[in-house]
Structure formats: C-alpha cells, structure tokens
C-alpha cells in the first residue's frame, strides 16, 4: 500500500483539502512549516474544534505562515496561494463556481464542520485535480471523503498512523481504501511541495 513518494509525483492539482482532529494544530504546523511566500495552490482545512467557541486558527496560522490565511466565509472565492480554515459550527463545501458555501445541516460523525463533507464537495468540484490530506485524529471523519477523492481520480495522502498522535483517523482512512501515500509528516510536506512544483509548470 505504501508507495515510494519521490520523485514520482507530477500530478497537477487545482486545490488541496486537509483534515485533522485531535493533535491537528501541531501536525498542521509541521506539515506547513517553511511554506514559500510564493505558494499558489489554494488549501482548505477542516480541523475539529468545539462548536460553541470562536476559532482563532486563522490568526494563529497567519502569524506562522508567509501566505494569506482566512477563515472561510460563505460565497468567498478561493484565491491562489491562500490557506482557509472552516469556521466552527458549520459544514464547509467548495462549489463549482470555485467559492465556499456553508451549511447548518446536522453534524456528520459527530462533527460540524465535517472533513467528509468538505472532501466530497472538493471531489465533485475538481474531479481528479484535487489532493486530500488526512492527519492525526480520534474519529472516523475523513475516511469516506478521502475515498471519494480517490474515486474521482484525485490524489490521497494519509499521515502514517505510527507517527500520528492519535491514529484512529488515519487508520480508518487506510481501512477504507489504499491511499496513494502513507507517510510521516515531514515527507508529506515534501509531497506538498512537489504538488506545488507540478502546479507551477
């Protein structure tokens, strides 16, 4: 199931979607560390947080990264080179018009925002031109969404469960389908940079 990551990744993607739960902030920090300021592929993250609280994820990562970071708002267009976080208490989808939409539908697998919802919408919108990354987490959210990306011909990457702080989420994804890549964070970061290089061609 594990394939050698390098130097084979030449896939050209239009967007990257990422999901994580418990331990996700730390994992995401490692994954996105050293991102270049001229980054181009829009990235969208669902990170599970308690619903009642305002999220400060966008502020936190805006301080750490050299690219624009926003909380996704309804009908906000996806801009090149930006990083977006789903707001707490809403499902986040990407529409064909390349903009976000929010929804108050009930939680999926106890989660709102749901990683499955974001990833399935990205698979519908981008088809094969999307990459999904699933990191550490303590529930099954994301396994189905990542599988939908795989079915649409997109690229799927999962944090090595042996390295993940909580292995439930990556293990559930691996049980659902054989991801294109199962790697520790440092190598997932190299994969991310390769996707950017392929995008720039």
């Amino acid at each position, binding site marked *: 199931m594990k394939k050698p990551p390098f130097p084979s990744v030449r896939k050209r993607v239009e967007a990257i979607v990422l999901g994580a739960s418990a331990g996700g902030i730390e994992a995401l920090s490692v994954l996105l560390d050293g991102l270049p300021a001229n980054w181009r592929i829009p990235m969208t993250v669902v990170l599970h947080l308690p619903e009642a609280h305002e999220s400060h994820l966008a502020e936190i990562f805006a301080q750490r990264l050299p690219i624009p970071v926003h909380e996704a708002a309804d009908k906000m267009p996806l801009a090149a080179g930006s990083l977006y976080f789903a707001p707490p208490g809403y499902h986040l989808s990407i529409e064909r018009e*390349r903009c976000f939409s929010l929804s108050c539908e009930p939680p999926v697998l106890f989660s709102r925002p749901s990683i499955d919802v974001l990833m399935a919408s990205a698979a519908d919108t981008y088809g094969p031109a999307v990459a999904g990354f699933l990191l550490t987490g303590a529930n099954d959210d994301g396994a189905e969404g990542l599988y939908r990306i795989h079915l649409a011909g997109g690229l799927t990457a999962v944090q090595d469960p042996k390295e993940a702080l909580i292995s439930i989420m990556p293990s559930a994804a691996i049980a659902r389908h054989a991801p294109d890549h199962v790697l520790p964070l440092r190598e997932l970061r190299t994969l991310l940079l390769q996707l950017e290089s392929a995008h720039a061609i």
Partner: protein
Amino acid sequence: MNTEHTPPLHPLSDTEIELRLLMEAIYLKYSYDFRNYTVASQKRRVLYALDQLGLPSISALQEKVLRDTALFGRLLQFLTIPVSEMFRDPAYFLALRRHVVPILHTYPSVRVWVAGCSTGEEVFSLAILLREEGLLERTQIYATDINPASLEKARLGIFPLEAIRGYTANYQRAGGRNAFSDYYTAAYDAARFDPSLCADAIFADHSLATDSVFAETQLVSCRNVLIYFNRQLQDRALGLFHESLSHRGFLGLGSKESIDFSSYADRFAPHARAERIYRKGT
C-alpha cells in the same frame, strides 16, 4: 497562463445532471424554485431523501414526485433545513439590544421581518427581546418561510424541553433581563412559549426565490438562510430586503454570512460588524 480565473471545469456528474433536472421538474410542477440553491448541500439532502424514501436514484424520485403531490410534501421537508435554536449566536441578540433597539425606539411603530423563520425559534426569541425592551406592543412581526409544515410549528411556539437548557444559557448571554422560565410552561417533553408573545405576529408562506416585497420594514432578520443560496439567488433576496427596508433600516445576517461577496456590498453599511448587523444606505 493564469488558470485560477478560468479553471477547466470538471464535467457535471450524472448525479448533478439528475439533480438539476429534478429541481427544474419541481419548479415546473409545484412552483417551488430550488434551482439556485448551492449544489453541495442540496445534493447531500436529496441523496439523504432517497435513502429515507427507499428510492434507487434521483431520476426515480423525479418520476414519482411529478405524479405524487403527497410525496412532494415529504420531499420538501428534506429540501429545507429546519435547524434552528433560540437566541442562536447570543452576541447577535445582545447587539440588537444595544445598538438597534435604541434607534427602533424613535419610531412610532416598528415592522420586523423574520425571513426564512423555519420552526419559529428566532421569532419567539425576537418577541421576547422586543417585549423586554418595551417595543413588542408597537411592533408588527412578519415571519415567513416556504415550508408550510415549519410555519405550522412556528405558530405553535412549542419546542423540545431537552433543548431548553441550551436556550436558557443563550438567553442569558444575549442580555436577557428575566428568568427564561418566565416565558414558557413545561409539559411532558415540551416547552410551550407564552402565546401572547406572537399573538399579533403574521406567519406567512413567502419565497425569497419567487415572491416580492409585501411590507415596509425597519428590521429584517434573515440568518443562516442565504448560505443555502447561490450568489444569484442571494442577490435576489438581498434586493428584496433592500426594497423592504425603510431609509436606514437594519439587516441582520448569520454569524458567518456576509454581503461582501454580493452585488449589495456597497448598499449596506456595517452597523455592528462582528455581529453581522448592517444598515441600509451609508
């Protein structure tokens, strides 16, 4: 080449084609216009409806729904999202109290439009707030929705008792002046709200997609409704609100909604920006 502005569109899936045809059929047959709803959420709800109704495909649903009015009534419950709570986003209601109510007090009479009122939680919340602020007596509330079953529930003002604890916390954070329990009577597993709160409110069937303005209002509260509309339909709805609002009238949206990406961005000014309360004109 800058591909971000002219993305190569991934071809429509069969499911999305079926979805569009279903919405066209519903519009032609029943005059309910869901054609400009956001696709991602609509698709999820229709697929869920298929599962619940035991039908194999959207095309099969379309065939049945064209000939079976009762089935359409059931499908309508899946297509609309009756998810609401009382004093949802307490900061919104607190901002209404602090920054809108003092201005509404300067009017001899006030009209409030709750657009997309669903099962009425927001209507009763506003009625409580207006009564505590001494405004309910001279306020006419219009509560509208496209779903007759939701409107029927809204009129009754009966909400599940299990939700009351959360509503009470919301009410307190929203600047509530009394004990929340003053407003309802608990019986079995339900809380029945004081019928006098909405005795004069008008609950009416109205579609933001197909109907026009029916009254001049000073406050429109339309929260977490526009998120289900695409930009074209959002613009239509915002146009109705703009037309309905009197000079310097107020528009309240959901906490993650924004007029920034609509054609009306420059026709409203933020009044309480973080709480998504806008004011007509500048």
